[in-house]
């Protein structure tokens, strides 16, 4: 399920060194800043799927919302086909949503319950394409439902969201996103609320949209196995920072960053041998720690309090992004030249 590697043209959608801070109230009179996303750089290309993997609170959803234009970045820039996206009073222009669509996690909360499927799908057609003609609307709605395999289409079009199962609803949500004919689809945990037996249908549908329509896809998930199934490249986030990225097989089979390793090893894997499993469970009973507060993140590498390999430099200086070839990179002092070590050597 891998698209042929492409030469790197201009990405359809790119985040360049994007940072998002939220001001929050921290008790009476005092304010604090949540550093939700820090220096995120991400390219989405036509016909390719990038998986953004991380735990809750790692900034995945914030980044998706930044890319979707729901938030304005605190610094850095979002570029659509090379052109920086302008925001006015925290909003992008409507035209932006014509190219970039976001699918939410919860198919139960993202459809208007008072309207039939037909209405939910007609809205984007009217708003973004100015379709007014009834016959034309009916034809397009039918096409959309057929593309997401909700057939017979005319029957589904007249149902209310509550008459549909979770999987069917999520397909309507995808159909609605497709109605605007976007170039980029951002999926924020699009399958995590669905029943296990129907998740694959959804992944296969997303895969088809990528191959047949050449959509650029961002697949956000905490499930590494499903990321491996669908995507081409993986980017791992931890505590608001991107810490590793590269082609999926290499990243998952041989993680560079200790956090990626922890994440992969913690994922359920029935194929794991009995001995590996026992060793893993024995080791896992120790405290593996938890992600830090984003209001007051640790200095240096944000993973260092949990990292078994932490050195002095990790506690004081944030590791730079190190490219290790074959499209792989990481942000870890194990793979970067330690500035303190070099200075000692030269002395």
């Amino acid at each position, binding site marked *: 399920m891998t698209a042929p590697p492409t030469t790197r043209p201009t990405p359809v959608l790119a985040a360049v060194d994007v940072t998002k801070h939220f001001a929050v109230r921290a008790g009476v009179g005092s304010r604090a800043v949540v550093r939700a996303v820090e220096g995120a750089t991400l390219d989405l290309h036509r016909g390719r799927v990038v998986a953004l993997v991380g735990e809750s609170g790692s900034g995945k959803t914030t980044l998706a919302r930044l890319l979707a234009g729901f938030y304005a970045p605190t610094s850095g820039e979002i570029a659509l086909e090379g052109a920086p996206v302008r925001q006015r009073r925290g909003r992008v222009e409507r035209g932006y949503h014509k190219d970039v669509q976001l699918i939410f996690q919860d198919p139960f909360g993202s459809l208007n319950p008072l309207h039939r499927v037909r209405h939910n799908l007609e809205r984007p057609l009217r708003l973004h394409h100015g379709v007014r003609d009834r016959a034309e609307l009916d034809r397009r709605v039918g096409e959309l439902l057929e593309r997401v395999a909700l057939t017979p289409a005319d029957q589904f079009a007249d149902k209310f969201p509550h008459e549909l199962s979770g999987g069917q609803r999520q397909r309507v949500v995808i159909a609605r996103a497709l109605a605007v004919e976007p170039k980029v689809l951002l999926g924020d945990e699009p399958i995590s609320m669905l029943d*296990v037996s129907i998740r694959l249908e959804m992944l296969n549908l997303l895969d088809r949209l990528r191959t047949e329509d050449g959509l650029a896809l961002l697949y956000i998930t905490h499930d590494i*196995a499903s990321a491996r199934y669908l995507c081409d490249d993986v980017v791992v986030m931890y505590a608001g920072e991107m810490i590793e990225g590269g082609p999926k097989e290499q990243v998952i*089979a041989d993680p560079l960053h200790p956090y990626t390793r922890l994440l992969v090893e913690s994922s359920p894997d*029935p*194929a794991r041998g009995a001995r590996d*499993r026992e060793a893993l*469970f024995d080791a*896992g*009973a120790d405290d*593996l720690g938890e992600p830090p507060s984003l209001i007051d993140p640790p200095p240096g590498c944000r993973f260092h309090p949990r990292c078994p390999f932490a050195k002095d430099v990790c506690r004081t200086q944030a590791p730079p992004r190190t490219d290790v070839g074959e499209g792989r990179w990481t942000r870890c002092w194990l793979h970067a030249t330690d500035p303190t070590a070099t200075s000692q050597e030269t002395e």
Partner: protein
Amino acid sequence: MTPPAPHDDLLRVTGLTVDYVTDGDPVRACADVTFTLRRGEILGVAGESGSGKSTLVTALSRLQRPPAVTTAGSIEFRPRGGDAVDLVTASPRTLRSLRWTSVSIVLQSAMDALNPVMRLGAQFADALRTHDRTLSRQAAWDRAAELLTTVGISGDRVRSYPHELSGGMRQRAGIALALACGPDLVVMDEPTTAVDVVMQRMILAQVLCLRRELGFAVVFVTHDLSLLLELADRIAVMYAGRVVELGTAQELYEAPRHPYTRGLRDSFPPLRAPLRRLTGIPGSPPDLRRPPSGCPFHPRCAERFAGCDTHLPDLGPAGGDGHLVACRLYDAAPGRDRTVTLEGSAR
């Protein structure tokens, strides 16, 4: 994973049937559920939404509320050093004497089940001193600190309020609380669904470690079969309120018999094995208000044949190690007759 002592049944569930009594026809959420749980064993119950797994949990723990009514069957429970009790007919007084000392429960939202205005220690002391009236306040607090340590939370956290702990820590505190009175059986209903994978791995490792130490048995209910395959000794797969397959985790992974189990197993993309296109299971789980005739899985089953839509298959042996399956494909399996085998143990 230590094998449980053979032929020492802690729990025998026979023909358990739970209906939701509504204005119209009753909805049968659990139908004729039969299984045994050995002392110290971890029995996984896997199922999708609407499979009746949560109904089973509330019926086992007698926590169900109207409109749920247990209409048939028995739950024979043999606590250590006590007489067998049928939990279905047990009086409130008997139940009260069993609860927490013999049977305890961890819910998905255990992290929210802690009293927000009481320190952890006070909540532990409350439970401990209710069941052991001779315990002094100081001794109870000391024991609370010990219990927290067993789940990897520092003992001085007894002074903390729940909001001062992370979600994962609260969930672990909920598990420690469930173990406070040394129960024989701990029922866990999706205890790790609300936490991240690293925390999940840690919680499971601790449960396994404590089980080895304390010897309690676990009924572990989840939608995540891939998790159970790594954790449980035996697994019961539920579909539309029925147990459709029951066997050791290894058998169920390597040679699932029921087409649904096979489909479910193949719905989890592999973490390391070569990728192939997976299809999941077509269709969606049935509406229990209008269950399909015959085998409830037949509308989605690729291997159905004449009669599947009219004959309801029994749960019967299907070769090797007491493996049980409810599917007409195995009607000719050796050792199979029309009566349902209760023991299911051929160790």
